[in-house]
């Protein structure tokens, strides 16, 4: 019989051996949830779990949670879907495992999607979208220059609440060529702020959640928005009077990272290896939510599909691909300046 003392000891023991206890749980993947999370589960996680065993899919991703679990040495997530910025933020704070490229063959992948501490598995874009009813007759915006042109395209605007995306959009509006947006020098940051100051009086909302810009667009609260392509395509499917273009799209990849100290490191690498396989990438593309990172999968797109994702060669040619290492640097350097800009 378990007396009180033995019970207390076993309780203390289980509290002290947290990490080994964690080994008893299934492999856990964490995504941001939503349509993206569902697509990842269907195209990546479900097929590989049939081969490798159970995978628990949880959401949403939370960076401070990753930091807390790594620092407490009690990692509960083995593979996490994050924003590109976190690959570098997490590396700087020593929260991530290196991706083991001796296990994962990335020779078929463009190098831009391969990082030491994260592997991009799919891509989306930040684009300018517009309410068709509020555009001048027979004209649709063609560039970020048009987004800044309030005289020709009147109405309110909405931009993102953080400095990234805005930096890229502002430079493109200022006429900086796609290939010269990076590296982010002090002059370019100044230019971006100048350009943003110019449009600030017309910015009604600095949005924080992806649902906001499309909501504001479809109700006509603003006439143009900087928004995530997936969200815009979603409302277009519902026949909202909304349009968008991949011209000068700000393309971003979405990386998976492995938190430091996970008991399932090897399996995480195996899962990652599957995620960038032709089979998984094609299945992901066919779900029509985001674009594949693997060119051989993107090449299989029907002409109809090609219009919907940024990584198709036709769209990629005119896109500005976000350089997350540069983004991490300019964001960290200008955090306070950005907040000052917002509240003044």
């Amino acid at each position, binding site marked *: 019989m378990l007396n009180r003392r033995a019970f207390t000891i076993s309780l203390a023991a289980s509290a002290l051996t947290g990490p080994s206890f964690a080994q008893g749980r299934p492999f856990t993947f964490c995504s941001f949830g939503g349509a993206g999370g569902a697509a990842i589960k269907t195209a990546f996680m479900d097929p590989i779990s049939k081969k490798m065993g159970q995978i628990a899919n949880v959401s949403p991703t939370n*960076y*401070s949670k990753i930091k807390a679990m790594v620092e407490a040495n009690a990692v509960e997530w083995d593979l996490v879907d994050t924003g590109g910025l976190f690959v570098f933020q997490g590396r700087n704070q020593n929260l991530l495992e290196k991706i083991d490229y001796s296990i994962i063959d990335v020779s078929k992948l463009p190098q831009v999607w391969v990082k030491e501490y994260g592997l991009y598995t799919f891509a989306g874009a930040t684009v300018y979208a517009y309410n068709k009813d509020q555009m001048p007759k027979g004209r649709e915006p063609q560039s970020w220059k048009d987004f800044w042109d309030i005289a020709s395209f009147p109405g309110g605007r909405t931009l993102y609440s953080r400095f990234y995306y805005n930096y890229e959009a502002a430079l493109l509006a200022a006429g900086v060529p796609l290939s010269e947006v990076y590296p982010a020098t002090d002059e370019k940051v100044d230019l971006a702020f100048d350009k943003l100051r110019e449009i600030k009086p017309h*910015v009604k909302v600095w949005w924080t959640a992806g649902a906001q810009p499309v909501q504001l667009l479809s109700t006509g*609260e603003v006439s143009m928005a900087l928004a995530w392509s997936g969200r815009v395509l979603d409302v277009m499917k519902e026949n909202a009077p909304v349009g968008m273009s991949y011209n000068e799209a700000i393309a971003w990849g979405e990386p998976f990272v492995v938190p430091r100290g996970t008991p399932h490191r090897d399996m995480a690498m195996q899962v990652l290896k599957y995620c960038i396989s032709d089979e998984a990438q094609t299945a992901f593309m066919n779900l029509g939510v985001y674009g594949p990172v693997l060119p051989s999968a993107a090449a299989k797109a029907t002409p109809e599909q090609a219009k919907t994702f940024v990584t198709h060669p036709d769209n990629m040619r005119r896109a500005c691909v976000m350089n997350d290492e540069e983004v991490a640097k300019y964001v960290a350097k200008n955090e*306070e300046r950005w907040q*000052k800009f*917002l*509240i003044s």
Partner: protein
Amino acid sequence: MATREYYFTSMTCGVEYATRFEILSKDNLKEIMPSAPLAGSRDRRVDRFWGSVLLLLPLAAFLLMVFVVPLAMLLKLSFGGAGGPFSAYSEIASSEVYRKVFLNTFTLAITVASCTVLLSYPTAYMLSQLSGWKRSVAFWCLFFPLWISVLVRTFSWIVILEKSGPVNRALLGMGLTSSPLSLLFNSFGVHVGMVHVLLPYALLPIFTSMKAVDRRLLLASDSLGASPLTTFGRIYFPLTLPGLSTGFVLVFLMALGFYITPAMLGAAQHMTISMLIDNFVNERLAWPLAAAASFSLLFVIVALVASANRLVNFVSAMAAR
């Protein structure tokens, strides 16, 4: 008997005595007559003391575990900045941006608390006059929204107040305005959303203080020839003031920590401390900075409540009714 006599003599002397009558009527004789035989022996008082300690122990232990210990850990974290123990505090104190955000937050909390109290006072009076099923229905209408998530309520305000929303359509239809008004993403939107969420917290203490007013005092004032305005200003208002100030302080303190509503309904200029802390915690992963910002806020609040307590006895106003 003594009570009753006191009441009649005090009638001629106005408010001051009326309040003292209230003390008497609560049988709190000990305060007025310290030598009264009610006090009991010394042994009984000691028993009472240990009894209170025992009754408070579970709560104290609970608070120690889930409040005091985490707070201490947070305090330790706030001294863990990369540039020395006080670096996080000095970063916050020296930054023009963070000072402005603090100022923003306090201004917003004061204006929201004022609007809430102004709206609550007449509403609470109306409620205190109702009885039976009418009051039940009124309270239902008041508390039902409390069960809906703040996020949902905030989104609903966006739908109601937007450019093509029902409010603007009604105003346009009635010809009161020729172009849609901006009701969102400005000060107006933030106030509407926050007052809505916080209204019950001001209304309840005001309502209870109104229910506790002895109607006979108003009759007495009337019969002595005071105008309704004088009766209100010299009797009713002073008697309900503790409830009013409790409501104000409660709403003010809650408004200081608001996050979702100003973030969704306000403009970028309305950044509050909570938004700043969220940015430190989740986006910048700068935890010492977040902890220092939290403690700065806590410090200012404690200082404010302490000084407010000298003006209106907040604790007794909360506990008395």
